[in-house]
């Protein structure tokens, strides 16, 4: 089991234990974590699962795809050049076990 930590803008934290193969978006939506919407169900189409990945975890992330890059320019809250990713494109694997993210002000 791996750990996903969500840091909300108000300072609260949610921690989820998830199985490999789950995306950050899917984990959040399944567990009712506010601050992630995931409107398009993970197709990299809606830009409503925007997260800021914390520094120590950036290296282990999969390479950013073209579609993801395109959608990150469409987020409701400004993109961070280093840390912004779509939660639906980050999957818990053997390579990426734990991860911590900061949630943006808004997804819509």
């Amino acid at each position: 089991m791996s750990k996903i930590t969500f840091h909300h803008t108000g300072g609260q934290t949610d921690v989820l234990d998830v199985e490999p193969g789950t995306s950050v978006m899917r984990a959040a939506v399944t567990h009712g974590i506010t601050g992630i919407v995931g409107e398009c169900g993970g197709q990299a189409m809606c830009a409503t699962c925007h997260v800021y990945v914390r520094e120590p975890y950036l290296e282990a992330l999969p390479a950013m795809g073209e579609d993801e890059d395109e959608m990150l320019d469409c987020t409701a809250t400004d993109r961070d050049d280093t840390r912004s990713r779509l939660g639906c494109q980050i999957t818990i694997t053997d390579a990426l076990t734990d991860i911590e993210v900061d949630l943006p002000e808004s997804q819509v």
Partner: protein
Amino acid sequence: MTVISDKLRGADAAPTADWVTISDLHQDPFPIYRRMREESPIHWVPEVNRYMVTGYHACHIIENDQATFSADETDSLMKRAMGHSMLRKDDPEHDVDRRSYGGVLRPRAIKDTWNAIFLQNSEKYLSRLKAAGPGADLVWEYCAPYAAENLRQVMGFYNATQEDMQRWSQTMMDGTGNYANDSDVWARSDQSFDEVDDAIDEILPYLRKHPDSSLLSKMAELPIPMDAIRANMKMTIGGGLNEPRDVLGVAVWALLSRLDQLAQVLADPSSYSMVFDEAVRWVAPIGMYPRETTCATVLEGISLPKGARLGVAVGAANRDPAVFDDPEDYDINRTKQPHLAFGGGNHFCAGAWVARAAVAGIALPQLFEALPGLRLDENNPATAAGWVFRGMTSLPVRWGA
């Protein structure tokens, strides 16, 4: 389904709303939705012959659980009218069709190609509107031809006119809604079906030789079988024309009827995005779409049998007071919550970014800039209609002194 098994599940049967009529819904569904939703998030509605889901939470659960709530419903009128498009498929088959659209409707293509075309079309139909003079109907002189011409070019139907697009769209959507099984409606729908097929067959060889950014150009290399292409093109004609037309009309009417918000927007053109978002929420262009249960299930405490025909009434869900404060009000300044007008999950509207660009990005700012003093014609009130699809049916406007 027995009373005993319901009790064992601890679930109730859906209450029946036998007072709901289609003609009342068509005139103004919102007071009906409000009354229904206050009683239960799900009702059996005899005249519609569906379980209508009016609660936001219930609709949201449905759209994210295709295993239980299938898009491939039995006796689908849409399949009869258009063929089997992606809209009536579940994954993995749906995903194959959906991926075939690639980047055609995505933000990069909009920036690189479509915005310039939308701008051209807006200018063209603004001229037409101005020539028609104050008192003209904004819907039919601007919103409709603008939406139709945009779609014609996005799709690549260079061998058709925007009037053809409007006719094809309306007749096939009438077929999709032909619960009355009216034979004249089928005749017109079927004629459009054939005309669209002929147009596709004629244009694909051309696009193979002259590829461009259009949807049909992408289809010309046959990424999926031809019968799927035909159905998806018809579905796109049905889904990508009336809807942007309708949200544009509703947005203009809403602003022109609320002078404080109008003043705010005119002073700050970056607000058009909020105008669009709130219009789509307030009057969802597609007010209801169908699903069918694949097994007996319990949803929000209501038991549904296997094979239950659902009407997912996102038009109602978008005004659920559990999610939206003062939901019946059009208010661009409300705290934004995600609405369901573009659907959610795997069927999330593929044209959502195109609609936003064409309506909020170009049409709304252009309209208000080109027509100072744009206002409703007080001698000729605007009209709206529909519930499965809802929009302005007439919007007479005046401008200038």
